[in-house]
């Protein structure tokens, strides 16, 4: 029993953090926000050069074969720097779906290889998401038609853009016609793929939300240590301290929930749905609390476009309801918890 990360995993996280600290500064975020596409080919290129697109592609397709547990660290970094790119959609969520296709499926190796080399953008649909993130700039879309999974080239779909308050999110309403040529899976296999994709999408977002929460806490700590009123830093006042202590506490207790869920997904445990939903709820709540307390301790500055906090708040507000809103995830937890004979209470944290 060892519920911690390996040194390699922690070192990797450090390296990603150092890279993004330089590559994804808030000034760049603002610049990309202003563009029509909202995406920077240069940024994607540098992410690919770092090997970040290849992380969970299996080794025989040119990737690193990283699992969900390591991604639970990676997504936190993506959230912390709020990168204006849908890296995790292709490199984690779509990769997971393609990877789960039967070996020998013609498209599987080809697309996974292209993901690894960073030469393809993939958008992923799911019935829980009314719109498809990054549908417009995608080269390929994985789309749902009932239980069916379709892989459709961008040229075969019509995309109507829908603006989000988070200018890093580029959402599209996709019109398309399913055909036998685009069908990847259906029936039981299709259902299983979408179920797993929902969990992976939700976990990806949960990690990002937790990273966002930490960033908003850090920004708030910096601000209240500098801003002076009544002749001293406002961070010395208990009312302000206690706001931020509450955020720190929520973050602290969301982390292991995220890690437990990642392990459950990587090991396809029976109770994975409730674990993932728990993680999504815990991380979303931490992020929203960090936003609320963050804007409060920033005072009027927090309500401006000028202060960086807004970019992270908006991402947190938007992501919270993606890949299943709180109602969906709370219901999944309740279903597991209230089921007859549910294994819960002391001694069931790791075993049924």
């Amino acid at each position, binding site marked *: 029993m060892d519920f911690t990360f390996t040194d390699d995993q922690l070192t990797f996280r450090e390296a990603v953090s150092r890279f993004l600290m330089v590559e994804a500064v808030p000034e760049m975020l603002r610049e990309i926000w202003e563009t029509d596409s909202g995406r920077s080919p240069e940024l994607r290129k540098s992410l690919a050069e770092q090997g970040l697109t290849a992380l969970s592609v299996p080794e025989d397709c040119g990737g690193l074969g990283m699992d969900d547990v390591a991604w639970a660290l990676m997504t936190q970094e993506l959230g912390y720097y709020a990168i204006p790119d849908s890296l995790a959609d292709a490199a984690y969520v779509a990769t997971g779906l393609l990877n789960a296709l039967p070996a020998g499926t013609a498209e599987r190796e080809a697309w996974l290889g292209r993901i690894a080399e960073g030469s393809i953008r993939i958008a992923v649909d799911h019935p829980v998401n009314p719109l498809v993130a990054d549908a417009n700039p995608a080269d390929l879309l994985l789309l749902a038609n009932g239980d069916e999974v379709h892989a459709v080239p961008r040229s075969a779909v019509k995309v109507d853009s829908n603006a989000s308050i988070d200018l890093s999110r580029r959402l599209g309403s996709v019109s398309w016609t399913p055909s036998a040529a685009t069908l990847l899976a259906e029936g039981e296999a299709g259902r299983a793929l979408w179920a797993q994709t929902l969990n992976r999408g939700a976990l990806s977002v949960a990690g990002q939300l937790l990273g966002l929460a930490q960033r908003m806490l850090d920004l708030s700590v910096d601000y209240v240590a500098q801003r002076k009123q009544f002749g001293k830093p406002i961070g010395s006042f208990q009312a302000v301290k206690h706001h931020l202590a509450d955020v720190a506490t929520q973050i602290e207790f969301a982390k292991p929930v995220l890690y437990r869920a990642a392990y459950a997904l990587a090991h396809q445990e029976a109770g994975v749905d409730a674990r993932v939903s728990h993680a999504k709820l815990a991380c979303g709540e931490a992020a929203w609390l960090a936003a609320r307390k963050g804007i409060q301790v920033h005072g009027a500055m927090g309500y401006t476009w000028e202060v960086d906090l807004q970019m992270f708040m908006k991402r947190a507000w938007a992501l919270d309801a993606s890949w299943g809103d709180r109602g969906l995830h709370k219901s999944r937890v309740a279903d597991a918890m209230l089921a007859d004979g549910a294994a819960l*209470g002391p001694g069931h944290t790791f*075993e049924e």
Partner: protein
Amino acid sequence: MDLAYTPRQKAFREEVRAWLAANLPAEPLLSYDTREGFEQHRAWERKLFDARLSMVIWPEALGGRGCDLIEWLSFEEEYYGAGAPMRVNQNGQLLLGPTLIEFGTEEQKARFLPRMAASEDMWAQGWSEPNAGSDMAAITSKAILSADGSHYVINGQKTWSTRAIFADWLFGLFRSDPGSSRHHGLSYMAVPLDAAGVTIRPIQALNGKQAFAEVFFDDVKVPVENRIGDEGQGWHVAMATAGFERGLLLRSPARFQYTARKLIELYKANRAIADRDPSIRDAVIEAWTGTEAYALSAYHTVGRLAKGARIGAEASTNKIFWSELDLKMHETAMRILGARGELTADAPAAVDAARWLDGFLFAQAGPIYAGTNEIQRNIIAERMLGLPK
């Protein structure tokens, strides 16, 4: 990350489970805030000790079992999962015990720890004073070394000392340098409560029982061998073991997971009534998510400790988390019970012998004792986040 228990860990869990199944008291013990209940709990502790299960993480030579922290968490899960009695000597065993292991002399360890593990000695705490509560460094009770260096003479008053009227010993901080102030000049002492000059006056708690007491010291002579750690280093000694023990050892996740399980059962048995208020279902869900989060955090922390990490101010997040969660769970139970919630144990119409009411009352104290949650939030802000004083 490997979330499977080792064969040794599994075997130990099985042993604990089997022992509890064979030995749990048939009837719930009386409240340990009464003399009779206190002695019942002492007898139960003795039984645990004889099975070498009272202090599983202590070394065998000191009356323990030499278990690792994962085995300790498993023990707690089996223990509280079985609904076993509360641990009456835990303030000594979980707060003074680790302090002695780190700072005590070999003689002190041999003298105090096995008897503590067996609950032959029951320990009360002596920290707070009438004018030193959250501001513990304002302690004024004195322990002055005699001219020949053989003993200390203690004068002053301690308060909020849990179950002190039934206990055998008291441990706590006293000012050994009369000219000192704040955190300096304090010494950590063990005081026998039957010594001449000790007067104990019970304080009636919220539940009507004599759950804690004031302790008065009037020229109480205590041999110098009873000082734990160096003279004047009491604050350091007290703080060095405060983090992990207060955070985790004292309130392991299992007892809260047990409460959550009982709450879910209560909710399921009363759904028609409870669901008239939709916020109750939400609160029940949060009982499970909250207690699971706390358990997961404990396993994560224990794993990091095993790899050599030190736990610092983040222990204060534990205190806030479990105390507020426990309160919320008991509030939720009271809301489900509705008009039956107020009934005490001797009321014929009481539900489950009024255990929820007892727990609800005790839960009110959680955010106050072991450092109020306001103090914990200050600690988090200043030491974890680095905010200015």
